[in-house]
């Protein structure tokens, strides 16, 4: 008889296996979690395992510790009662479960540790490099050991040898000594003190470095245990300050909850837009805490994907998602929103000017149906086309110039200034629409000497508004497809079609037939045609002047890029992925390594990993893999790092 029971406990996951009378529970988890719960004694195996863990970690492997504990049936039963109770409690269930788990997850006996090789997905370093160039600050929040995490950071070009690293680690001598003494309160005090001191000194150092050598990259690395204390409200300000100065931040050995805490720290504390991307169930809280959550679907299950706003299949598609589609969406949204402001403002203001000349009686300028259909039919479709199709630069150029993304980070296209410019021109145009039409309609028209009435003038003005507003849209488009032409021409045609029909019919309903025959009367005069050309041209004159001057004197980045590539042939399939038929030397190498017999794990799903394992396993298999310069450099830097925390510990 055999069954096992899995409980989501504080040590990631633990399960108890029962075999009749012989009961023991096993636990697996990150080394820091397991080590806290080990029984006294067995220092040899603990020490050896710790050494192994560090060794594996530097090699970039993911490590886990295994431990077990003997349980008697009675112990189990009494515990199980509490567990069932906790499991079925309605309030604070998670907390109670943790408490109950705590009861049994103690005095564990270490079995040993495991190390798992975990391949970095294709294109991750390149992707991260591109995103950094786009002005996106990258934080790595990982459950891996610090050594692994730093390796990953190297692999992803987040950290290089010139980077100044600020490391806050709980693996320092002072803390270890305190741990050996075994008093938890003492341990906490020591860690807190050391975190506090290092944060303060690092912050000063970082500020100095920023003012003296601003081009030097800074990296901040902290582990989960220290992060717990650093997230304390008293230290949070320093933590945030330091993190924002640093170019990249690596948090290792962090729990899912801490991932979320860090995310909301940045989100709320720094008031920045945050994006979380992850593939595992432990990323869910972080994905939900960020403004934008992205799940990578893969081997680790669907939890991340289901919790996310966007799901992608591989990490590197983040480049496309952000730089191409994210940027386009931003541009389109800005354009659509500002245009909506504009078109309604310019239309409504004409009505407003008219009110001044009606003795403030509130007489409407336009016929009711004109007003109702203005947003629904006459100006609806073109702006949707812009929302669907507008592209400032092609997808490939978006990725070629990742810096273009910064326009979005700075919110260049939805500043008050931009809205004010649109508002100003809406104001100007409305004056043109109202006063110019009104002034031009004075006195007799045509050789008949007949006079136009109020509805003739308003229909004239409305025609000008519809034509202008639609043409203005065309002016602000960066790329004009046939759908743009179709919708703009269609909208204007829809207006004429509508007014031809509307002013030709009379109904038996009791309503005022103000615009009956108005358009035909209007179209029988030269005034109509002269005004129809004059007013839109004058209305758009201001916008055209502004756009010309702006483009020449203060061009936006995307405009310069447009100019640089204006003679490029049209690329219609721009997002096409690179051809796979010819392997680059690097790919060939990774292919050779994937051929190694032992490596038939199906693991491809982890987001972050270091290509360094290749050489690790390869060397064990006797396959010669040439070391890359950064591999060597990284190893060298690892040695330094192991000493560095000690130094900070003493200071």
């Amino acid at each position: 008889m055999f069954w096992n029971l899995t409980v989501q406990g504080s040590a990631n996951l633990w399960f108890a296996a029962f075999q009749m009378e012989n009961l023991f529970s096993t636990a697996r988890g990150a080394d820091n979690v397991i080590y806290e719960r080990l029984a006294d004694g067995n220092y040899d195996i603990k020490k050896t395992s710790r050494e192994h863990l560090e060794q594996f970690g530097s090699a970039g492997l993911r490590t886990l510790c295994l431990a077990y504990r003997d349980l008697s049936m009675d112990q189990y039963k009494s515990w199980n009662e509490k567990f069932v109770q906790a499991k079925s409690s309605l309030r604070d269930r998670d907390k109670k479960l943790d408490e109950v788990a705590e009861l049994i997850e103690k005095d564990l006996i270490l079995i040993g540790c495991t190390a798992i090789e975990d391949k970095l997905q294709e294109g991750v370093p390149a992707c991260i490099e591109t995103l950094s160039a786009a002005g996106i600050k990258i934080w790595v929040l990982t459950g891996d050991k610090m050594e692994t995490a730093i390796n990953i950071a190297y692999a992803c070009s987040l950290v290089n040898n010139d980077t100044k690293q600020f490391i806050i680690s709980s693996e320092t001598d002072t803390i270890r000594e305190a741990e050996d003494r075994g008093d938890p309160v003492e341990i906490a005090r020591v860690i807190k003190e050391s975190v506090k001191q290092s944060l303060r000194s690092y912050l000063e150092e970082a500020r100095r470095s920023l003012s003296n050598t601003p081009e030097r990259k800074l990296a901040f690395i902290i582990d989960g245990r220290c992060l717990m204390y650093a997230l304390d409200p008293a230290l949070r300000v320093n933590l945030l300050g330091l993190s924002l100065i640093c170019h990249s931040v690596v948090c290792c050995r962090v729990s899912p909850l801490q991932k979320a805490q860090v995310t909301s720290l940045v989100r709320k504390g720094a008031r920045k837009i945050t994006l979380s991307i992850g593939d595992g169930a432990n990323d869910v809280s972080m994905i939900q805490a960020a403004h934008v959550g992205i799940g990578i679907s893969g081997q680790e299950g669907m939890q991340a994907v289901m919790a996310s706003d966007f799901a992608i299949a591989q990490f590197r598609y983040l480049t496309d998602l952000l730089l191409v589609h994210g940027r386009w969406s931003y541009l389109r949204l800005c354009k659509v929103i500002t245009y909506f402001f504009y078109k309604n403002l310019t239309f409504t203001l004409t009505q407003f000017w008219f009110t001044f000349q009606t003795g403030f009686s509130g007489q409407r300028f336009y016929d009711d149906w004109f007003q109702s259909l203005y947003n629904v039919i006459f100006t609806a479709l073109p702006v949707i086309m812009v929302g669907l199709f507008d592209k400032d630069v092609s997808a490939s150029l978006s990725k070629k110039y990742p810096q273009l993304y910064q326009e979005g980070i700075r919110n260049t296209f939805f500043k008050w200034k931009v809205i004010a410019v649109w508002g100003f021109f809406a104001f100007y145009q409305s004056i043109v629409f109202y006063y110019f039409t009104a002034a031009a309609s004075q006195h007799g028209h045509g050789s008949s000497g007949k006079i136009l009435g109020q509805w003739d003038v308003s229909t004239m003005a409305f025609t000008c508004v519809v034509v202008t507003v639609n043409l203005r849209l065309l002016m602000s488009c960066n790329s004009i497809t046939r759908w743009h032409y179709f919708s703009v021409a269609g909208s204007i045609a829809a207006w004429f079609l509508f007014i031809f029909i509307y002013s030709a019919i009379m109904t038996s309903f009791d309503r005022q037939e103000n615009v009956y025959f108005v358009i035909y009367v209007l179209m029988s005069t030269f005034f109509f045609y002269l005004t129809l050309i004059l007013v839109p041209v004058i209305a758009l004159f201001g916008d055209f002047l502004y756009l010309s001057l702006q483009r020449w004197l203060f061009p936006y980045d995307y405009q310069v890029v447009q100019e640089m590539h204006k003679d490029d042939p049209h690329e219609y399939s721009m997002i096409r992925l690179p051809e796979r038929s010819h392997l680059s030397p690097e790919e060939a190498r990774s292919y050779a390594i994937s051929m190694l017999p032992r490596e038939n794990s199906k693991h491809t799903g982890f987001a972050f990993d270091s290509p360094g394992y290749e050489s690790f396993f390869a060397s064990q298999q006797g396959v010669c893999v040439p070391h890359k310069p950064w591999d060597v450099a990284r190893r060298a830097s690892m040695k330094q790092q192991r000493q560095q925390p000690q130094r900070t510990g003493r200071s």
Partner: protein
Amino acid sequence: AASPAPRSARAPSLPESTAEAAGAGRAARGVYRGPERRGGGGVAAAWGMMMDGSAAGTSNGGSGADGDAARRNNTRMPKYSKFTQQELPACKPILTPKWVVSVFFLVGVVFVPVGVVSLLAAQDVVEIIDRYDHACVPPNMTDNKLAYIKNDTISKECTRILTVTKEMKQPIYVYYQLDNFYQNHRRYVKSRNDAQLRDYKKSNTTTSCDPERFTADGKPIVPCGLIAWSLFNDTYSFTRGKENLTVNKKDISWKSDREHKFAKNVYPSNFQNGALIGGKKLNSSIPLSEQEDLIVWMRTAALPTFRKLYGRIYVDLKANDTITVRLSNNYNTYSFGGKKKLVLSTATWLGGKNDFLGFAYLIVGGLCIFLAFAFTLLYLIKPRKLGDHNYLSWNRHPAGR
């Protein structure tokens, strides 16, 4: 491996076991093979996965040949179209100096002649304007104009002498112009009933005609409403020396109004019967469609200063002709400080003496030509190489973050 055939076909040199082992490494690459085979391009594959996580999950799960075979039958890749893939051919206009200058120049070149022609047309028009509301009040009543206009016993007859400044070819249009008269006031505009005007069966319909719906004894007024009630009632007659200049009052309203909005079989009734007389009385034996003064009046004006056509004189007038106008100054504009003017005007193809359009065209055209030169100058003085990468913000401030 369930179906090793396609796999070994691609990698024939690999032994079976290694091929399987390579599954993991290949899985990611396999994802792109599918769409390529369909000739749709890699884009769709990338998007399919971006939008649909579960589809990606199966394909990325990539346990070798199984995945490959399943993928072929069980893809959720959306159908390729240029529309959905945002690959529609597009024109990408860029406001280069060439474009800016040529647009300005083109507009200028078109607008200036149009402006000149319109202006000339407006200049040809001869217009005589005479404000008479003030002058027609007897000298002893100028302090109390309201008493004068309300007193029926005082004769409202008035004579004005006009001198023709320039030769006026027939037809000469006679307008009256009112200032500060808010025909576009909300309450005024809605105080009419169109159904009543065009359908004799609906003569009882007087909705929205307040406050002129019924007479004191409850009979419906036709035409009802404030607009009709306040119908302008000054009259003019013109003589040149001894010669009587007849004013033709036919066809002064728009044809559509006459034929469709005002019916041939609706006659005025109970009109201006109340204690408060607003304006002209109508001959109740003439149908509304022939009451052209009413029709003209009821096409309400857009602005508080407006002209209405009174009639036409089919006589050529020579310069320095003196015209005697006999008018009856009945209409009360004194109570609201309005002005009344009599206008004699000729017309051209463009209409009356309105040089607004001409000036607007001329000024805008001139401005555009000026700007064409100004921009040419700007491009010469402040040159910028098109697409100069030094203008990119990250090149301007290299540290820029």
